[in-house]
């Protein structure tokens, strides 16, 4: 049987299952902590740092933190908010994100967070990296321009034989996430769709599928990210 523990979010005491991931426990309590590299159901990575909160006064990533008795969390301070905005701005500046023509526009987590943090013009210089579009796979298209290297696809997508479909190559600021050319030859439409859905941005696309969800019915058209929760 699950044990319940008491923990504090922004000064209020809540109950949660012992050891639950903090982002999900907070969500269950109606408190929004932004995430990007985290995805429910796959192991947390702590890569993007946007979920940074103050735990007993010290910064830590909420996706990798587990709830324990007496945990004292501050989810939102002016400093944390401006830090989160900076992360979103950096991600925009270091890739080539052209929202208007992106299939994920309106359903993109990065774009939704940019709206939340009112990012208009990044304070960081655009890098305009030269990146290509990997289009030789039969069902999937990988647009490296839009990849934010969250690695959700690497952690979350496997074929029925258990083989990962995505892998990363190179290191540091050169890191690229590639589709395995052999495995990709033979995947189901359902797996292709799963891969597209797991990507927070428009870096993984199903071929031939574009803009079939009208404006007004996309994920964040009605409810902006986090709007259903308090922050």
């Amino acid at each position, binding site marked *: 049987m699950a044990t319940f523990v008491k923990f504090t979010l922004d000064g209020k005491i809540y109950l949660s299952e012992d050891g639950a991931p903090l982002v999900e426990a907070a969500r269950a309590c109606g408190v929004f902590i932004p995430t990007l590299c985290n995805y429910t159901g796959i192991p947390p990575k702590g890569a993007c740092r946007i979920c940074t909160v103050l735990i007993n006064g010290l910064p830590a990533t909420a996706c990798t933190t587990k709830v324990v008795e007496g945990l004292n969390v501050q989810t939102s301070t002016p400093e944390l908010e401006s830090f989160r905005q900076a992360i979103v701005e950096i991600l925009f500046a270091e890739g080539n994100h052209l929202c*208007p*023509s992106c299939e994920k526009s309106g359903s993109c987590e990065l774009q939704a967070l940019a709206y939340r943090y009112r990012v208009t013009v990044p304070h960081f210089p655009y890098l305009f990296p030269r990146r290509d*579009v990997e289009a030789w796979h039969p069902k999937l298209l990988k647009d490296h321009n839009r990849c934010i290297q969250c690695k959700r696809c690497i952690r979350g997508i496997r074929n029925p034989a258990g083989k990962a479909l995505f892998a990363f190559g190179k290191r540091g600021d050169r890191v690229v996430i590639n589709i395995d050319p052999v495995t990709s030859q033979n995947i189901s439409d359902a797996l292709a769709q799963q891969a597209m859905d797991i990507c927070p941005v428009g870096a993984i696309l199903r071929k*031939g599928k574009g*803009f*079939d969800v*009208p*404006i007004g019915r996309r994920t964040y058209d009605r409810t902006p990210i986090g709007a259903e929760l308090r922050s």
Partner: protein
Amino acid sequence: MTQKIIIEPVTRVEGHGKVTIQLNDQGEVTQSRLHIVEFRGFERFVQGRPYWEAPVLVQRLCGICPVSHHLAAAKAMDVIVGAGGDQGLTPTAEKVRRLMHYGQIFQSHTLHFFHLASPDLLFGYDAPPAQRNVVGVALANRGLALQAVLMRKYGQEIIAATAGKKIHGTGAIPGGVNKSLTLAERDQLLNGPHPLNAGQMIAWAQGALAFFKDYYKKNKAFIDGFSRFPSNHLSLVRRDGALDLYHGVLRAVDAEGRRILDDVDYQDYIAHIREEVRSWSYMKFPYLLHLGPDNGWYRVGPLARLNTADFIPTPLAQAEFETFKQATGGKPNDMCMHTHWARLIETLHAAEAIHDLLLDADITGSDLVVKGARQAEGVGVIEAPRGTLIHHFRVGANDLIEMANLIVSTTHNNEPMNRAVNQVAKTYMTGQKIITEPMMNAVEVAIRAYDPCLSCATHAYGRMPLEIALVDAAGCVLDRKRK
């Protein structure tokens, strides 16, 4: 000593241009040129992008006529996904797209007439500039100004209902559309509270026509004579010869009304239309291949469309069309200022077409997309508010765009606009050494009849200035004016 006049910027023209008027030793106008800096950025920009992005991407090249680019690219992509041709789309998809297009025609034509052209008509091209603008119209005629705003708004509501947004929507996708109208949207547009409903729009379009015809009666010499010259005319027509702004075959007639392009499939446009490059202009000069650049140039737009079409398939506009044709005894109309008349007849046709489409049950249907055998190359052509718009794409087996060629309406009208400017310059600037306000305005009025979308033709963003320069035989600029 030859002299040259340069006029820039042309106000109330969307975009940028520059006019140079060359005078000879006797002070006569020998040549006038409209220079537009054409920047083909978008054709490069879409290369390497997946084909389904094209309809949403290319519409960004113009903030003024995005729907036309959206639809022309979508039509090209219909061909790519094997849904091209006349029977390609589902009835719902075809009609929703038509509704979007007629909404755009309606709002664009309304904007042009009330905001851009009516100041010239209400006050005359020699009126002081302070009066000759949309504020002047509003002050002199509140009812007209308010109507204009509401007509535009109605057109934009149609675009929003079909494309998802008033500007830069996503409605048309390869092989169809992503939404039809809900019953609520349909009822709102059809029977919305006064005045935003289809019936009122028809009535107001008739009112605008009556306004023009009244003006014409009182100013016949100006309307008939200003910047008049013979030309060929090109547009899409429906297979049966009807005016059709969304789909059809390419037809061109000469100044006498003889067919010089006989209802050809636009997938083969490249076999009939060429673009000439001239050293002094960045904007190309299209012409009909078999007639060559000297004789094969043509006009596009409202005037050209009423010259190529045999009839208009809605009754009120058809009646107006008959009156319009009587004015020239059935021959093609080459009177530049009659473009405004033609535009208003099309506005009425658009209002009627919108009304009919809203009454059609297919408009709320749910069968939205069809796809067939994938093709490597596709052409999409549409009659944009300003005239024929051609989008041509080649797509690789990997789904990425390899080649794009766009010929926009304003480019088709390049030669006619140059001729119009030259004609006006000859009339108003011969023997002049300085550019007066009315002269400047006359040049602008001539250019504006073509409603050039220079931001589109130059494939660049924003509104750019335009200047007129008067240059003598030795190449010295006698006068230069900007607005």
